[in-house]
């Protein structure tokens, strides 16, 4: 892994629109961050407000990079993302990035990308990168209902949607579709980012069948730069990493957010 430099940069908002119910996509210019060549899985830490009412930045996965432009896809969750959703074009956005590690090796495998909800950004971007590089892969995207989807169900193009209520694509969670694909393809390797129940289901499944799998993990972050020790996740193994003061916990912001499924424990 190449170590990329963290950059603090003021970007300029170029677009900020609701792309599905309560889900927004924002694009901004951020030349110096783009120069660090971010890769899918990496994230930004965004200061939502000049004021100190919300002292902490909000971590957001990068959803795309185009020349000097970055984009994120985010859900309006609480006060911080509400403020983000009100940014107008031309607004100066306070960014820190690229942060964290990124999705790894796909060679010799059939990548199966699994995403859902706010965890879609790295998955969709990774999907684009693999397409560009001509790597054959599948992508499975889950949601509660059609309102939250902003891709089309297109199994011919290897894009599978699922909905809890059956309003588009396959009825149910992503898991039945994932299992079916794993049965069909050679050397499946899973890459997943999504809500905790989805991640737990994927984790359980790959551990049972011993499939290689990379998970993009979320945790509450204080700094995203290794200063606060707030963002820990429990390790399964005892492989001490650089910024972790210990063997039991890993810092999601600097060691992660991408982990081999076997490395970590979901509590």
């Amino acid at each position, binding site marked *: 892994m190449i170590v990329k*430099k*963290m*950059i*603090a940069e003021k970007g300029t908002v170029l677009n900020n629109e609701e792309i599905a119910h309560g889900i927004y996509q924002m694009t901004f210019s951020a030349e110096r961050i783009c120069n660090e060549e971010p890769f899918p899985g990496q994230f930004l830490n965004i*200061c939502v407000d000049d004021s*100190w*009412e*919300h*002292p*902490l*930045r909000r971590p957001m996965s990068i959803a795309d990079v185009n020349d000097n432009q970055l984009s994120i896809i985010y859900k309006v969750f609480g006060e911080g993302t509400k403020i983000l959703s009100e940014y107008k074009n031309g607004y100066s956005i306070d960014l*820190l990035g690229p942060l964290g590690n990124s999705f790894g090796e796909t060679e010799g495998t059939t990548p199966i990308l699994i995403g859902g909800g706010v965890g879609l950004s790295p998955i969709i971007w990774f999907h684009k990168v693999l397409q560009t590089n001509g790597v054959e892969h599948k992508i499975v995207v889950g949601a509660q209902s059609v309102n939250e989807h902003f891709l089309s169900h297109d199994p011919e193009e290897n894009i599978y949607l699922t909905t809890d209520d059956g309003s588009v694509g396959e009825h149910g969670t992503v898991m039945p579709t994932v299992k079916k694909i794993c049965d069909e393809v050679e050397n499946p390797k899973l890459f997943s980012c999504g809500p905790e129940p989805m991640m737990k289901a994927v984790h359980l499944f790959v551990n049972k069948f011993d499939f290689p799998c990379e998970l993009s993990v979320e*945790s*509450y*972050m*204080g*700094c995203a*730069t*290794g*200063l*606060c*020790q*707030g*963002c*820990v*996740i*429990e390790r399964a193994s005892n492989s001490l990493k650089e*910024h972790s*003061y*210990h*063997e*039991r*916990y890993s810092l999601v912001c600097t060691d992660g957010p991408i982990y081999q499924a076997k490395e970590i424990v979901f*509590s």
Partner: protein
Amino acid sequence: MTVDLSVSLGDVSFKNPVFVASGTFGYGTESNDLVDVSQLGAIVTKSITKHPREGNPPPRIVETPSGMINSIGLANIGVDKYIEKMIPVYEKIGTHVITNIAGFSIDDYLHVLEKLESSGGNVCGYEINVSCPNVDTGRMEFSVDPKSTRELTKALRSATKKLLILKLSPNVTDIGEIAAAAVEGGADALSAINTLFGMSIDPATRRPNINTNIGGLSGPSIRPVGIASVYKISKAVDVPVIGIGGITSVKDVIEYLLAGASAVQVGTANFRDAAIATRIINDLGTYCEENDIATICDLIGKVESYD
């Protein structure tokens, strides 16, 4: 006009009075991409303990109105690895490093301090985090008991001639009394404040937002408590005070200096912006120029109190 930003604590002179606070700047090297740490008045390290500590289980952090609660649980690499890995780095870090020490008995603290003394490393002094339960006296924190504070300070004083700073907790009835005890024990300086007790609960899950239920509150919300504490301490004792709590701008630094602080530490604000302390240092120079303040000492304790 050239402004003299330097300040002295004990026998040590610092290039400026703006330090970074323990636990909010790692070991000082994590943010090298973002900030030239050599500009800082000093770096105070994460608390170091006798043994490495893995810290508390997550969740460890939550935001609150103009603040945050944490319960990191003193996660750190332990004194041996600290001496091996970090002390050599500090030879060329370009500013003073103050090692913050935590422990659960007087022996714990002494062990860490003695190891550091005999390491011969480039550590200019120690800040003692007394907000830890004292196992010798039934788990009451050192910081809440004048006697524990005095004894601990005395023991450490007899083991070092270097700068010895006691870091006080605001969670006490009379912080002046604890300050006086630390000075009786031989402290060169006092720093205040550590975090306040705080708690928040997620109504949806009914779980506390922090694994220890109650954690430590920091950030701008506690700044008025920090300033009041510094004011009280500087009335109670005659050693320099280092002001901590909610600093985000040069205006906040001026308030602390006027209240009686000889230096300050920036904490939570580093999480938003690792370069914030260095920018405050620049702003402090500009402020002094614009207001014809020749030396920082012309601000320290210069509040015009009502009587």
